Each structure stands twice: as structure tokens, then as C-alpha cells.
């Protein structure tokens, strides 16, 4: 049989760190990147005798995420202990939610080549993150950093509604943008604040029974999710085609070799012995509480996209790209507010800014400048103070060392030469130096004009106003 005879079934468990100021069960800060074990206290280090107290913001953020993904919010929920031993888990249990998650039965819509598709969410629950082990820096020893222990997470579990690597990526992007819009997670994938466990299985077309699934843990980039799924689908089909059976196992995706490897052996099949955490009380939410959160939800990406199509006449593709990230979308709106030139803002974002983001593998949240600065840059072009080519250099400078664009061009001496006398002087100089081009132009070769303008730009290091140059050359050559 060929690959086309198989169907792919994918489910994602997305973990998002919540952007609360403090941890889920103590008041330690959640900031990323502190020196090891500096953001800890007796509670998150699991000192004997300490007790957890639930951070109410965590519940609020999780409910927000639930409402933004069309979930039913459970009015009666609780925390459970998931027991297992590992050095990054100081209590030897993770406080999570087992049979009564905060949010259930939601969905999001993704765009596929066949149109819109609903991906259902089974549940969203709250839990605490574990610490981190440092294996490499200290010869032979593994050291434990508990800064991350107790950082709040939501786990969003999808139904197995995803049927390709592309759909998985679109779903992950959708979840990411929703979480960004409702401002419950900063979704920095490189820092691990958004990561996914990917479940993949294949079955013959028409089979009602699902195939055996494998799980790939802790995927934290769109690219590796897509590559890993493609690899795993191929691997599973090969196994079946060769007459073998897919083993249910947990895998680790290795980005360098582009392969998956088994992570644990089967004799380690864990029994987590979930039971309700007796240190915490039930989470009971009133209708009023949930309704107040519902009312506070900001505009979501889908609605912004529709608005951009209507108000700014953006193409579907551009609108989708800009609204895919709250940060791009905010940048877009702020810049328009400043320069009132939506078309130019759109162009800058989808071309140059996106290109730089791609090249530097930067997430939109990391863009160092704001919409105000981008808007001012566009005003400078519109006023003719700088040329587009200078503007590109200013943009690069904004990424390097963001400040007022006007300041940048002054400092760098990039102000466009728009003085008629000065332009005339340059034009005459270029004309006298290029008699051949002058002759060509007069002989009807219009291209020669472009060459002359190019020479003038070169001599002024790109600062001459190109429209004025064009006009002046034409006049002088009449």
C-alpha cells in the first residue's frame, strides 16, 4: 500500500506557562532567567511542613483561556496530586488536576487548504511546572534549579482531530495567538513557556479503530513539530508496511539528526496514584465570577482579522499573518494610529519586518521597537525626508538599538538631500562624468536615465531624493 492509503491522527497536549507575577502556590516571582535557585522559597523547595496556597490569578487566567477556546467552565473543580519521583519535582508529586479540570469541551477553528476546520479541546487544567536539571555544566553531576518549580501552567488537551503536520502547526499557532491576545501567557517558545506533547498514530483509510500512538514530549518550535510529525508518520507507516507493529511509547525528537528516539523503557510504566490534594480546598466558581471574566475578554484574532479585511482592505493572507500574533497586530494598529497609512504599515510588516523575524528566528514578542517608532519611520518616508532604501537601514537600526527614527537619521547623517541647488549640482556633476549615458539617453535609450540616477545615488550614499533626481535629470537632458 502507499502512503496515500493511510490516515494520520494527531492530538496535542499544549503546556503554556501563565504570565502571573508569582508562582501558583507561593509568592516567588515567575521571571525567566534568574540565577539558579534565586527565585525559590521554603514552599516551592518543598521544605518539610510547608503548604500550598492557590494563586487566584491562575484560576482567572485558566478560565480566560477556557472561555477564549469555547470551553465549558467547571463551577466545581479541585487540585489533585500526581505522584512520581524525579529530582526536578521537589515534593515528589505535582499538583495538577485529574478528574475535574477547570475547563472542558471547547474548540478552536484553524484555516486549512480545504477551508476552516474545528479542532476540539477535551480539557484545560491548571498545574505547577517542575524545576530544571543542569546536566552539562558540572562534570559528572546533575544540579537542580528550582526557579521554575511552581510556575503556573495550563495544559490544553486537544481531541485527536488533527490530521496532518500542517494542521498541527496551524492549531499550535492558533492556540499561541489566542493565549497572547488574552494576555495569559507570553508564549515564548524558545524559553519553553509554550511547549507541546504530540501524539501521533496512523491507520488505514476507512478503519474505525485508531492505530497505536506514540507521544513526542516537550516540542517547543513550530518547525520541529512539523518535522517531527512528518518523520514519525513515515516511520510508523514503514513499520506497518514491513509487517511490524507500532509500539506505544514515549519518544524524544532530536532536531539535529531529525529522528525520534524512545525515552523511557516500558517497565517504567508509571502509576501516578492521583488523589485529591488534602492541603487545598475545592475550587468553586460563581456564575458571576465566570461572567465577569467573559466580559473582560479582549478582541480575539479572528475578529481582528475580519476588521482588517473590512477597514483596511488587507488581503486574507496578510490579515492572517498580522493577526497571528498579538504583538504584530498591536504593532500594526499603533503604527497606523501614528502615520495613518495602513497600506505602508502592512507592507513593512509582511515584507521587511517578517523577513528579519524569520532570518533571526525572533518571535514577534521580542521586537524591540514599538508601533509609534514604526509609524514615525513611515511618516519620514511619506514626507520625503528619507528614501525607502534609507528607511530599510533605519528599520535594521530599530531592531539593533531602538530609538526615535528621526534621531537615528540625524545621528547617522541619513537625511535625504532635497535641496534643489544641491541636487542640481550633483546632477550636473554626474552628467559631465558620464557622456556616454547622456548620448545613449538622447538616442532614445530610456534605461540610461536609471543608470544616471543610480550614479547620483551612489555619490550621495543614497541620500538624494530619488524623485527630485529623476525630474532634474529629465529637465537637464531635454
Amino acid at each position, binding site marked *: 500500500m502507499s502512503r496515500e492509503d493511510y490516515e494520520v491522527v494527531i492530538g496535542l497536549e499544549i503546556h503554556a506557562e501563565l504570565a502571573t507575577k508569582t508562582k501558583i502556590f507561593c509568592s516567588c516571582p515567575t521571571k525567566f532567567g534568574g540565577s539558579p535557585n534565586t527565585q525559590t522559597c521554603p514552599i516551592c*523547595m518543598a*521544605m*518539610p*511542613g510547608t*503548604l500550598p496556597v492557590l494563586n487566584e490569578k491562575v484560576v482567572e487566567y485558566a478560565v480566560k483561556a477556557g472561555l477564549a477556546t469555547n470551553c465549558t467552565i467547571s463551577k466545581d473543580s479541585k487540585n489533585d496530586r500526581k*505522584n512520581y519521583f524525579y529530582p526536578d519535582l521537589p515534593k515528589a508529586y505535582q499538583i495538577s488536576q485529574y478528574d475535574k479540570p477547570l475547563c472542558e469541551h471547547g474548540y478552536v477553528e484553524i484555516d486549512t487548504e480545504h477551508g476552516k476546520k474545528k479542532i476540539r479541546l477535551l480539557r484545560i487544567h491548571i498545574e505547577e511546572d517542575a524545576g530544571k536539571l543542569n546536566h552539562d555544566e558540572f562534570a559528572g553531576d546533575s544540579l537542580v534549579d528550582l526557579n521554575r518549580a511552581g510556575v503556573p501552567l495550563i495544559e490544553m488537551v486537544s481531541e485527536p482531530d488533527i490530521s496532518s503536520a500542517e494542521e498541527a502547526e496551524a492549531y499550535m499557532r492558533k492556540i499561541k495567538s489566542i493565549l497572547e491576545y488574552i494576555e495569559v501567557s507570553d508564549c515564548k517558545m524558545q524559553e519553553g513557556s509554550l511547549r507541546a506533547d504530540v501524539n501521533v498514530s496512523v491507520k488505514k483509510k476507512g478503519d474505525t479503530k485508531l492505530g497505536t500512538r506514540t507521544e513526542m514530549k516537550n516540542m517547543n518550535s513550530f518547525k520541529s513539530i512539523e518535522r517531527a510529525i512528518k518523520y514519525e508518520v513515515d516511520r510508523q507507516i514503514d513499520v506497518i508496511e514491513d509487517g511490524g507493529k507500532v509500539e506505544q511509547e514515549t519518544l524524544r525528537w532530536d532536531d539535529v539528526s531529525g529522528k525520534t528516539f524512545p525515552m523511557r523503557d516500558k517497565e517504567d510504566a508509571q*502509576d501516578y*496514584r492521583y488523589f485529591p490534594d*488534602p492541603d487545598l*480546598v475545592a475550587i468553586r466558581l460563581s456564575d458571576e465570577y465566570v461572567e465577569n471574566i467573559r466580559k473582560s475578554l479582549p478582541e480575539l484574532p479572528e475578529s481582528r482579522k475580519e476588521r482588517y479585511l473590512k477597514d483596511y482592505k488587507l488581503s486574507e493572507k496578510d490579515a492572517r499573518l498580522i493577526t497571528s500574533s498579538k504583538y504584530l497586530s498591536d504593532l500594526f494598529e499603533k503604527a497606523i494610529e501614528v502615520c495613518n497609512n495602513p497600506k505602508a504599515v502592512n507592507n513593512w510588516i509582511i515584507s521587511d519586518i517578517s523577513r528579519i523575524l524569520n532570518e533571526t528566528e525572533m518571535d514577534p514578542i521580542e521586537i524591540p521597537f514599538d508601533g509609534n517608532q514604526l509609524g514615525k519611520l513611515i511618516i519620514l518616508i511619506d514626507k520625503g525626508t528619507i528614501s525607502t532604501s534609507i528607511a530599510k537601514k533605519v528599520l535594521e537600526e530599530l531592531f539593533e538599538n531602538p530609538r526615535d527614527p528621526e534621531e537615528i537619521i540625524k545621528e547617522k547623517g541619513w537625511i535625504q538631500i532635497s535641496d534643489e541647488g544641491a541636487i542640481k549640482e550633483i546632477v550636473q556633476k554626474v552628467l559631465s562624468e558620464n557622456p556616454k549615458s547622456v548620448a545613449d539617453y538622447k538616442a532614445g535609450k530610456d534605461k540610461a536615465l536609471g543608470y544616471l540616477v543610480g550614479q547620483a545615488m551612489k555619490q550621495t550614499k543614497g541620500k538624494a531624493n530619488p524623485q527630485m533626481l529623476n525630474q532634474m535629470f529629465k529637465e537637464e537632458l531635454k
Partner: protein
Amino acid sequence: MEITELTVHELQDKLKSKEISITDITKAYIERIEQKENDVQAFVTVLKDEALEQAKDIQEKVETGKIKGEFAGIPIGIKDNMCTKGIKTTCSSRMLENFISPYDATVVEKIKNENIIDLGKLNMDEFAMGGSTEYSYFKKTKNPWNLNKVPGGSSGGSAAAVAANMVPWALGSDTGGSIRQPSSFCGVVGLKPTYGLVSRYGLVAFASSLDQIGPITKDVQDAAMLLNIIAGHDERDSTSANREKVDYTKALTGNVKGLKIGVPKEFFGEGINEEVKASLQKAIEKYKELGAQVEEFSLDIAKYALATYYIIACAEASSNLGRFDGIRYGYRTPEYKDLKDLYRKSRSEGFGPEVKRRIILGTYVLSSGYYDAYYKKAQKVRTLVMNEFNKGFEKYDVILTPTSPTVAFDLGSKTNAPLEMYLADICTVSVNIAGLPGISIPSGVDSEGMPIGMQLIGNRFCEETILNAAYTYQQATKFRENHKPEFKK
């Protein structure tokens, strides 16, 4: 009278009249500890120098008016499972032999705020698991009434130290009877408050849904005073109740006229020692004499309480004690091959036999395939136990039972018979299961002169009722005045 024979309220009177000074008190207790510790073995850590220095300091501050407070300079002993900053908190376990907590438990903070002086940390069954204090890794505490007998447990060090006048009062903790049973064995007063009345923050957890800290004292007035100090809402403990403060000493009227006392017949049946029964019968007659209405009733569900208790307590313990893994603090095995080996050896060598037994039991009842049959069912029975008690409290103000089926037993007689040891909890565990307050006071002595304990159980947050019932009985019978521990060898 010797200073160390006085109750705390008597000490307060003598401080007020300047008959004695704060340093006199601490010196007297340190001397007494030095005299008796060899026999009683109540302490894991004695804070001799620290206490004497603190006494001097507090004395000075009180004299110069820098601090006030009715408890300033009164000493105390603390069970060694409550965290004390800068001082070892061992839980009488090899696992925590050298563990020094970086913070104070809420109750310890409250004690310090009153300028009460910590004389030391008291011995216990390892991680509060046991009923004789023989499961301590460090030492076996002896019963001051007869040194060949156990003091009870798990707060055996606390009860023995109070009975032996080595501390004026002490803090204990009670998960299934660990305050009341040793208090009964040692002839002192022990109160387990309503679950949620006293913060558990800083109490090294055994079974989170059952653990409560409470006073062990020479008399009921002292118990009411110590409860005044330690009770109250704590935002660091989600299970702590947010209620208005009560002055428990005000409840001690000495009047029980019209008080309705229920006596559950199941607590006077098979397995209860005849001398205990007889002593309790006399107590019942006394209450009637004092004007209380006493009635027998049936608390049928109680027979399931012990099994329910051991399932829930062990399940929670198996999870609570996971953190003692040899990684961050506590005992770590000196040699290991890999991570699993490190875990296995550290826990095998760091925990004693009773702790291991309960971890294994608890792990089993939470395992997939067994959860429904054990843990889940136990939770259902727990609800039934609560309901049955609720029904009882519709009719009665106080439920009266023996604290323990027997008086203190001989050292070593039950350490190899865990089930027999568990049966010693049969009268006390249902109170924890239902989250109720219970107090044990001496009702009399048996033919060998060993104290017998009476348990008075109240409705949730009705500490005032049982304290007054206990106080009235105490004033009418004068147990302390008539019986003293003899340190029989």
C-alpha cells in the same frame, strides 16, 4: 511547692506577685530536665543555654517595660515535628537527623510572639507514626508513672515531659490520637482541636486531612490558655478556618448543669479494659452528680473508623513523605549507582520500619486497580462517620468515651505486633476522621496506679463546651492533687 510542679496559670500568679522571676522559672526547669532526662528520655534537643539566655533577656525587657504580655518568660516544650528556625527538627527520624528548618512553623511564631521560651524539642514516634514513641530513631521515652511502661504516642515526649514536670506545658500533634492517647497514658490533659482551628503551616505533614496541633498541659486552664495562643486563621494554610477569636478561658465556668452527654456503647464493649470501663463509669456518675444529663446511645459506624483511618492516613503519608528522597535535604545514602539506587537506599536507610510499613500500605491503596476498593471507599465511610457524629450532636453537647482501651502498656510489648498497636487508636481515630475536637483528661488510676484517660468529644469548633466539661470534672475530682508520677523502676 517546687516551681516545676506549678501549672502555667500558677506561674503567672507568682510572676505577678514577684514571688519568683522569669529566670528562676527557666533555671528550675533546666535543673529538672538535667535530673530527670536520664530516666524519662523525653527530649531530642534540649536548648539549655539558649533558654537561659533568653530568660535573662526577657526578664530584663519585662523589668524595663520594653515588653509586656502575660506569657512572657513562660517556658514550653515543642514536639519535634514542628519547624523551628535554626534549631533541628528531626521528626525523630534518621531521615531528618541533622535537618535545620529555614523557617518557623506558624505555631512557633505565635509562641515566640508571646515571648515564651522554648526549652527544647520533644521525642515522638518517627514522623508521628505510632502509639508508644518506641518508633523514635533516637530514644525510647519512658512513662514517668512507671519507667517500664511506654508514655504512649506519637507525642510521647511531650506528654511525658509535662507529666515529669520537665516542661510546664507542651505542643503536640494529633493525627489519630497522638495528643490524647499519650496524655491519657501520662495522666495529663491533651486537646486535639477541631481540624482547621490551628494552622498546620510548619508541622511536618503525616496525614494532611487529619493532622492538628494542640496543647498538652497539666490542667484544663492551661490547655485553654495555650489554645488561645495557637488558634486562629493563617493564610498560609488553606485548610485553616477563618473564624472570630475566642477566649477559651472564659468558657471555664465549672458548671455542667443541663449539659447533655452522650455515651456511645460501642466504646465500652469488647477490647476495652475492665478497669478503664470502671473508671469511666465512675466519671459518668460524677457528671450526673454535677447535674449533667448522661445517656447511652449507639455510634455504630465507629467500628469502621479504624480501617478508614489507616487507609486515609497511610495514603496521604505515602505522598507527603515522598519529598524525603535524599536530593535536597535530609539523609542521603553514601554510595549509589544511579538515581534509582540513590532513592531506594536513602529511603530504605533513612526511614524506620513503621514509616516504611505505612508508606507501602498507602502506596498500595492509591494504586490503580485498588484505588476504588480502598481509598475511595474509605472517603465514603469518612462521610458516613461525619454524618453519624452530626446526628449524635443533634442530641448531645459532648460525647464521652475512654481515650484508650487500656492504660500504658509495657515497653516492647507491642512493637512486633503492629495491629495491636493500631488497636490502641480505636477510641481516638474517629474524632480525626470527623474533624472534631477531643480532649483527654485523667479520670482516675488503675490498681497499679497507672492513669486512665477520659475523652470528651465536641461538635466542630465547640472547644469551649468540652473544655468546660473537662474543667468541671477536674475541679470536682482533683486528680493532680491526689496522684503524682512516681518514676517507678
